[in-house]
């Protein structure tokens, strides 16, 4: 359809649908955003405050708390651990998940539904339900409290997530391309590396970024399996809040701002690669 043909009915439709409830919807959106802004700015302002008791704004401003929280909570180590866990989870989950997604997208076989259900369960069951037994098992094998244990626990929802995102992505790639490559004499290795690989990169990038955001933000599983040396940022933040009686509130808030800042940076990078409206369906925008 050409642009002129399409835009005319769209404008017509919007004029009709804007009347009922239109204002109500915008009011709800604005209210939600105001609350979110209030939540974010309350933390942000407090993290720069010398002290803030009861007034509209704090008594004075300082950046002291950022240095204090950086040293006291050893945030450089915590950030390094977070980075290591996130990178390992992304790489391993792609290595395991993409081949599985390929097999699921290209073959129908007996028991496929059962396999799909098993892959779906880690996403449909709350992390706490399998996190508690998983932590017990990891303690049995002396893996809990180590970096490896945290990575293994975070992989449990990540691998099914990759499979879930990649299967429809691979399904939309024409199998004739593979047949053509085979006809030209490509073996399985070159087929994957030189034909399918480049075609799959957008989907792999999208799932990698989504997993990165999920892993950095995953509280429950890391909380249940991490030891003192293997805390990620979100868990360290939780513990700092629990110990807030000893620490200045502003230090905790400074840490929360650092956490949100890094998450925001990740999300902005993610949105450059992933169109948020096309997470589940791939219809032209």
């Amino acid at each position, binding site marked *: 359809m050409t642009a002129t043909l399409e835009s005319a*009915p*769209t404008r017509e*439709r*919007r004029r*009709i649908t804007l009347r009922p409830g239109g204002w*109500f*919807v*915008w009011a709800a*959106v604005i209210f*939600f955003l105001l*609350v*979110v802004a*209030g*939540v*974010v700015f*309350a*933390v942000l302002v407090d993290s720069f405050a010398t002290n803030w008791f009861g007034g509209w704004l704090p008594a004075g401003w300082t950046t002291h708390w950022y240095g204090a929280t950086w040293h006291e909570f050893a945030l450089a180590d915590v950030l390094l651990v977070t980075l290591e866990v996130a990178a390992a989870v992304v790489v391993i989950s792609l*290595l395991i*998940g993409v*081949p*599985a997604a*390929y*097999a*699921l997208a290209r*073959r*129908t*076989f*007996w028991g*496929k539904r059962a396999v799909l259900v*098993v*892959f779906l369960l880690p996403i*449909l*069951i*709350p*992390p*706490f*339900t*399998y996190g*508690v*037994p*998983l932590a*017990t*098992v990891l303690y049995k094998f002396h893996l809990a409290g180590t970096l490896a244990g945290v990575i293994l626990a975070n992989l*449990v929802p990540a*691998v099914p997530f990759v499979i879930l995102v990649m299967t429809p992505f691979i399904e939309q790639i024409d199998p004739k391309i593979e047949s053509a490559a085979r006809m030209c004499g490509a073996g399985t290795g070159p087929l994957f590396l030189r034909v399918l690989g480049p075609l799959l990169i957008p989907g792999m990038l999208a799932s990698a970024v989504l997993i990165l955001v999920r892993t950095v*933000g995953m509280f*429950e599983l890391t909380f249940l399996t991490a030891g003192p040396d293997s805390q990620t940022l979100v868990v360290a933040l939780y513990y700092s*809040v629990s110990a807030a009686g000893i620490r200045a509130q502003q230090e905790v808030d400074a840490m*929360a701002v650092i956490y*949100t800042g890094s*998450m*925001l940076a990740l*999300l902005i990078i993610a949105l450059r690669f992933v169109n*948020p*409206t*096309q*997470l*589940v*369906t791939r*219809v032209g925008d």
Partner: protein
Amino acid sequence: MVSAAAPTLLRHRLAERGLDRTLLLLLPAVVFVVALFVYPFLYGLQLSFQPQPGSQVVQRYGTGPFADYRAFFSDPYLRNTIWTTLKISLPATLINVLASVPIAYRMRGRFRGRRTITTILVVPITLGTVLTAEGLIAFMGPTGWLNKLLLTAGLVDQPVRLTHNYWGVLFSLVITGFPVAFLLTLSYLTGIDPSLEQAAATLGAGWWQRFRHITLPLLAPGLAITFCLNFVLSFSVFPSAIMVGDPAGSTRVISIAAFHAAFEQYDYAMAAAIAMIMGAVELAVIGVVLGWRSRLYRGSTGGKG
């Protein structure tokens, strides 16, 4: 000759049923899920039937296989965590899903700044549960900006209590859950062919008729999925229930009970039993929703998912 042909023949016959070497690619993922999900789950299940010697449960309920479950259901402090969790997670999920429908409906057309507004609505995903809880205490607490505003405007005489109770947890679940629900709903909505609605409009259908009889039926399967994914998040609420909630009373959710049993009483059998009950209740709700979804139309023009 026969012996050389037989393996080929078997391979061909298996390939006809879809079993060939490609399936080996599935092997690492299956091994992984079995080792790190199925095995721990089954381990937890059998652990929940073996009460820990010397624990309070054994002293009171004996060493029978169901002692931990009996302990859970006969102690109101534990049993009520199920209702507490459902009372928080079901309304939060419903609010998220129901609010995301009209807002996503607004956002799906093309207009200036659509991408910006979508991005701003998605940003709360980055806040995480811990910062949300922190911010809610600072913003909605007794001396926070919200109460100041309400007091200054003369709407209330004394500060409204919105943190360290049920409402704090509900707010935190809406703030962290709504962006996810909105993203998914928007994604499903943009997958519905707009020409269907345009066709209905040419036949004289008003906006409500078009929404009720065309968009909603096509969107419903996607909404069911959105509900399930959001419910999983809300049901396992833990950090915010402790931080902005009232973890000993009105927001003592089931995950707090499981955590308490595992890491404060070190009764892993009881913790496993609570985790299994938690999973069973959650899967029951999801099962009802997915069962309802399987009766809906899921064709090509939009019923994706």
